[in-house]
């Protein structure tokens, strides 16, 4: 009786070992790829404070009511966030705008009114003042949406280090547009763009930093 048990146990162990080694490869790969994913995105702080801030671009465009909007004049002395994107963007653009909207709602009412959030389209051909207004107001009615000539928009973006290409029609008829890589915060004290936020900045991170940005301080 004893022997039988022992033999059976050995047989089990051997079979189990075979089973494990046969499946080992796949498991190993899955494990190593998930480890790589984790280490690929080390990140401690959302904000990048610039040593050499940007001058506010001299941008005169059209707002969502069809009126002329002079960026420097309209946002002078006010804390301002600027982002370049387009409304036919299903992911990053609404994520960015909605995150800022959530963070803004956490501010005291008076501060909410001070903060200027400006979304400049990178696809002015498809984003009319009306369609841009509708898209923005679904996220936050207080946000400013701007459209105009693409070369004017591109030149303005370039002045603050944001590279955007003109929308391009592909062979299959789809249009490939591009959004800016960063949100830029302008100080109410200096009117300079002094802090950058990447596209993976969360609502919580904006919520934490906005009170400082309102005062023109480094977050």
């Amino acid at each position: 009786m004893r022997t039988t048990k022992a033999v059976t146990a050995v047989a089990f162990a051997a079979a189990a070992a075979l089973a494990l080694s046969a499946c080992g490869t796949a498991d190993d790969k899955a494990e190593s790829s998930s480890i790589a994913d984790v280490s690929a995105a080390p990140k401690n702080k959302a904000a990048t404070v610039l040593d050499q801030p940007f001058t506010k671009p001299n941008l005169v465009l059209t707002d969502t009511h069809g009126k002329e909007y002079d960026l420097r004049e309209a946002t002078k002395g006010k804390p301002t966030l600027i982002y370049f994107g387009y409304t036919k963007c299903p992911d990053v653009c609404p994520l960015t705008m909605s995150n800022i909207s959530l963070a803004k709602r956490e501010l005291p009412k008076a501060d909410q009114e001070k903060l200027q959030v400006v979304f400049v389209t990178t696809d002015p051909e498809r984003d009319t003042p009306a369609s841009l207004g509708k898209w923005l107001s679904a996220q936050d009615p207080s946000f400013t949406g701007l459209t105009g000539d693409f070369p004017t928009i591109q030149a303005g973006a370039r002045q603050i280090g944001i590279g955007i290409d003109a929308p391009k029609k592909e062979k299959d008829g789809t249009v490939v547009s591009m959004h800016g890589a960063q949100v830029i915060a302008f100080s109410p004290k200096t009117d300079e763009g002094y802090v950058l936020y990447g596209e993976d900045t969360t609502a919580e991170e904006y919520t934490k930093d906005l009170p400082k940005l309102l005062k023109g301080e480094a977050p």
Partner: protein
Amino acid sequence: MNRRATLAGVLALTTGLTLAGCSSDSAPDLKVVGAYLPQPVSDMAAGFLVVQNNGDTGDRLTSVTSPLSDDVTIHETKNQKMRKVSSFEVPAGGELDLERGGNHIMFMKLKQKPKQGEKVSVELHFEKAGPITVDLPVKETTHNPKKQ
């Protein structure tokens, strides 16, 4: 005699288990996890999920269909531009990650605007494996699980 029979039976049983456990060696063994759809702000939406392949054979996601839209495409995102692709690789022993800020399923001309708490059904079609139907729970617009 009795002993032998028992042993043979045990061996046969474990071998059977071994084969069943690794039948994926010659075929993709796909599983979908972490699916969601952020509540859209316009007439388009993006869907995100992870396709895990526990098999030893790679596969490709070739198309997605859904009752939400007749215009569903798969998009890659590179350098702040997104572009339609014909398929995505689901590597053997690896996974295809469709995540915020990256590759995604794009729904155009939505038939209705799904609200947070609802579910959107999609059918994923692969080159080798059979189609997989999965429900995408609709989350808040800012939902981004990789940051939580």
